[in-house]
């Protein structure tokens, strides 16, 4: 075969370029990594980017942290991956939230339960929210609840998780607070908050049980109305006008912590180093601004304190799952 000399000359830099690119991919494996167990753009993505950008900007890590996406099984795939494959990777943290605790409580993560990983810490907390379209007939949570009592199957709820997920729990607890069995609730599972919001704007569902932080970009647009924040008390900043459910006479709370876990066989040295890193980050003023920009509220639980908190929470959810008729 006859080679064109120009092609030969050019193939060298091309091959070098390809080699460099694979090299970069490889080099990143030595740096820190955060797995977001979902598709890009959702809450887990936000959680990973909070750590990645925070640690980078405050100089707590010198190389940019890689954020990878591992969607599937609402976090089960990542959980099993960390348990089975990268169980001792000292550079890997995985984003988790209340949703992961719910799934653990329901036994959705397969053979593994909450005690299998090392819970590292939480950098912020978010709250559930009951959202309707701006032109919906309900002005307050009470309006919605009264209507729901009249026709439990007539109002369609939707959110980004399957039946049994934390997004569903919010809807189920809301129904329960109105004295309606969660089983009677009409609920549609979408793939993430973005799709659910599109369905709400398109009148395909009437109520979206989302999270406050993911609603931030839509608060000013005037297209949706947040009927209630599922928080203990009113949260500040751009959310100051949103009443809590408790204020309106319904006892529904749904805090969603945003935190991280590591593999079960990670050494104490690596675990403590990460705990130290996150604690320093949480105290940083610059980071406080970043957290606020993402619509998250302060939460500072790290190391063993957080580990205990999550395990206790999972135990509570198991109890709750029985109450709403989901226990397995």
């Amino acid at each position, binding site marked *: 075969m006859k080679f*064109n000399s120009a092609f030969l000359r050019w193939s060298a830099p091309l091959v070098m370029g390809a080699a460099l690119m694979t090299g970069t991919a490889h080099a990143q494996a030595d740096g820190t990594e955060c797995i977001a167990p979902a598709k890009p753009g959702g809450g887990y993505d936000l959680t990973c980017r909070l750590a990645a950008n925070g640690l980078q900007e405050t100089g707590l890590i010198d190389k940019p942290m890689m*954020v990878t996406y591992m969607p599937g*099984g609402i976090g*089960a795939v990542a959980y099993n991956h960390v348990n089975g494959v990268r169980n001792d990777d000292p550079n890997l943290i995985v984003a988790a939230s209340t949703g992961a605790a719910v799934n653990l409580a329901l036994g959705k993560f397969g053979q593994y339960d909450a005690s299998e990983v090392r819970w590292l810490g939480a950098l912020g907390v978010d709250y559930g929210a009951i959202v309707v379209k701006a032109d919906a007939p309900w002005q307050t949570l009470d309006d919605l609840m009264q209507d729901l009592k009249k026709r439990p199957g007539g109002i369609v709820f939707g959110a980004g998780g399957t039946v049994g997920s934390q997004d569903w729990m919010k809807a189920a607890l809301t129904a329960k607070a109105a004295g309606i069995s969660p089983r009677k609730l009409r*609920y549609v599972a979408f793939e993430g908050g973005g799709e659910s919001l599109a369905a709400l704007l398109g009148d395909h569902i009437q109520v979206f049980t989302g999270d406050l932080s993911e609603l931030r*970009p839509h608060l000013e647009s005037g297209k949706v109305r947040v009927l209630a924040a599922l928080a203990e008390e009113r949260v500040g900043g751009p959310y100051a006008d949103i009443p809590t459910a408790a204020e309106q006479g319904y006892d529904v709370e749904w805090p969603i912590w945003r935190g991280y876990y590591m593999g079960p066989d990670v050494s104490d040295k690596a675990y403590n180093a990460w705990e130290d890193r996150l604690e320093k980050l949480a105290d940083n003023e610059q980071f406080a601004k970043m957290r606020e920009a993402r619509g998250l509220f302060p939460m500072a639980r790290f190391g063993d304190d957080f580990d205990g908190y999550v395990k206790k929470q999972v135990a509570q959810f198991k109890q709750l799952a029985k109450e709403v008729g989901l226990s397995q």
Partner: protein
Amino acid sequence: MFDFLIHGFDVALTPLNLGLAFLGALLGTLFGALPGIGPINGIAILMPLAYTLGLPAESALILLAGVYTGAEYGGRMSSILLNVPGDAGAVMSTLDGHPLAKKGLAGPALGLSAVSSFVGATIAIIGLTLFAPLLARVAVMFGPAEFFALMVFAFSSMAVMMGKDPVKTGIGAVLGVMIAMIGVDSGTGVMRYTFGLAELYDGIDFVVMIIGLFAISEILLMLEHANRQDAGDAMPPVGRVMVSLKEVLYCKWAMLRSGVIGFIVGVLPGTGASVAGAVSYTTEKRLSDKENTFGTGDMRGLAAPEAGNNASAAGSFVPMLTLGIPGSGTTAVLLGALMLYNITPGPMLFSERPEVAGGLIASLYIGNIMLLALNLPLAGFFAKVLTIPRWVLVPAIAILAFVGVYQLHSDLMAIYLMLVIGIFGYLLRKLGFSLAPVILGYVLGGLMEDNLRRALSISGGDMGILWQSGISIGLWIAAVLLLVLPWLLPRLLPGKSPARA
């Protein structure tokens, strides 16, 4: 009204932003050309870099949007040259692109696809400029029931691909749908076909699927032929490298139609470049394949999916910029980038941050011209890949396939899965199956099932919801017409179009 665009060109034409648009276009073309690295990974790799460099929001967005559109350009290269799609949107480009290369027309095929990409993207960018807020309202009218009807329409338009062996096409599509079922069921959280393997909870990832099905089976075929000495197997010498004006004009309607189709598909949230490529190809085949030359290296069969997938990339910016809802996986990542800069996407974006919205749209115009300028001369250069002997090419593709899949998953299981799918694909090809219906069944089947389930949970099990809205009724009618007309027309109009029968 178009103040934002004039302002946008001011922003996009600064030396820094021009340079970034060029860099994005170049890197994007490379990312797209390498199997396994698609626009999502490209952007995910570059986003931290843009942020770390302290680029202002509009510059970062210009760079990342360049990568996105560039990747849709680059994806076609390996489709045409190696019969291996470089990314999800380029699957349909293999059908006529590779046969063209086999005819010795690799250079013109690459040139033509660059022109089609340009035309498709241009149509979509103009659509984005003129109709963005209006289209955003239409896009949200697409609920689960409408999406289901759209998928039915897409499946029925696939019927044209039945060609000489309808049974095998049908089996292929069903196999694809079955593969899409693997993993957690979105409605109930129940595991299906996972055999207790956690790695399968996730389902079969798109990249693993196309690299296995196309690249690995291609490698196996090449290996099988490696020992044969018959000359007929060798690629013909690369002839002329430039596409002629006549060839471009021959495909003008294919490009224009597919550009519009791709744009519309791109605007809808939840459907991306792969669906756009499939619908534009099948529509074009339906409309203009009078001599049954599609699939054997018809230029129009290459121009259609290329115009379609590039148009969908620009179209997916519509819901992102106007509603803050991502139209594709890639725009979801871009949305994350916007939020990092504390920018609120939505209708207010155009009045509150005109430099961001306008700068991005202006940079799409500029980047598109850059990509054409970059890709046309390169066509001849890349066409020479075909002169590389098999013993160099096969290991090179294998390395790219393995590295591509591993860098995405960092998990050996994905590699094994890719190999299993590859052997499966090889067997299918040996048995005379076409791979396109398998991949279409896989892409459309998953979307179809999810949306059917959602529609039925909205209505509480009442099937009526599926044909309640005007949009769904229109789609159902279109789907039925697509199936019935080719059979009915020759009977109603005897003698008028005997070639169709």
